[in-house]
């Protein structure tokens, strides 16, 4: 399965010369969140959509399909098992995609710093654009994070996806180091009995 990923990396991107500023504005004003609540912070996202904070004002909408989504919220601690799903979903998202991590666990392991089952540094496996501190940050902090990522998109600095493409080998080495070589095949086979 691994060689299939390489063409996913070597595939050339579409550069829109004429309408780039328009598309950048559109990307800023309409972010779709991939509805994949990874950790304990998943419950922190719905308050943002309710009447008090309402991120729909900024055109943000939770969207269950990764192919259409472009903002990936990593909310809460990341276990190796979830990280495999996150990596697969991240690679399915279409290219200008951004990752926002909530809470201190994905940053440096946080409260579970000594646990065998929590990934200590999320940044080694997937590129991160905005990190929000706090053991589950309050909705105000998350809204500020959203503002931050919109500013980065506007200024073009939100290039997590470009970093992933450029040094894909490094990310892949870290992933294989944690899960072992060809972990997609093994994982698929393991759950075959239950499907």
């Amino acid at each position: 399965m691994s060689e299939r990923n390489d063409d996913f990396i070597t595939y050339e991107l579409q550069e829109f010369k004429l309408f780039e500023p328009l598309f950048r504005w559109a990307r800023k004003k309409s972010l779709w969140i991939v509805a994949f609540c990874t950790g304990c912070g998943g419950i922190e996202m719905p308050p943002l959509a309710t009447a008090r904070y309402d991120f729909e004002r900024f055109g943000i909408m939770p969207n269950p399909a990764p192919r259409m989504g472009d903002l990936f919220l990593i909310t809460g601690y990341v276990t190796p098992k979830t990280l495999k799903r996150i990596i697969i979903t991240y690679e399915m998202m279409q290219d200008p995609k951004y990752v926002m991590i909530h809470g201190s666990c994905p940053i440096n392991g946080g409260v579970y710093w000594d646990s065998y089952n929590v990934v200590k540094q999320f940044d080694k496996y997937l590129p991160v654009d905005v990190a929000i501190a706090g053991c589950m940050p309050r909705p105000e902090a998350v809204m500020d994070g959203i503002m931050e990522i919109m500013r980065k998109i506007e200024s073009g600095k939100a290039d997590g996806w470009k970093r992933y493409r450029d040094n894909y080998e490094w990310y892949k080495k870290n992933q294989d180091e944690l899960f072992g070589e060809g972990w997609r095949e093994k994982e698929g086979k393991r759950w075959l009995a239950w499907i």
Partner: protein
Amino acid sequence: MDMNEKPKVEEKAEEVAEAPRLPNTKEGRLVKAILEKAPYAEGSIRRERRVEFKVPADRIHEFLEVASEKFEILIQITTVDWLKEGEFELVYQLWSVSESVHAFVRTRIPRENAEMPTVMDIWPVAETYEREAHEFFGIIFKGNPRLGPFILEPREYEKHPFRKDFNMIGYVKMIYGEDFDRYDESKTNYVI
């Protein structure tokens, strides 16, 4: 193993008399009824709506069959690792819907290659609890078809991580290497 289960502090005062005088409450009558049918067990009442039984390991299956008439639901199989006494303590938590009483049925089994008969024939739900207990403590439940790696990654499964003798800091250092950087060899002063 329950995260939110407050650690069991062994009760200091043993039951004083051989035949404890059970108060004539709902729980008392319930315990008396079960103790007649299972003389090998000792029952006591912790508080209102909570009852406790101690059962020797070899008679556990028989006792649970007796208890299952009154206690319809098996809530959880909790396992406590007494490293110093070299024993696992298995707590079958039962709930009686008819009398709304919560029962703790405790047994003690030796730590090395711990063996237990499965209770799936009484409560099919026990399969999941037994698989969990097996994965985290390595207790073999004879008769449970699906023992083996359940939630954890296969690598952690071999370690049976919840046993007290599992050196977690060393294992994590081996797995995550340099980005596991905030610890001090001696456990005395953690650096957060």
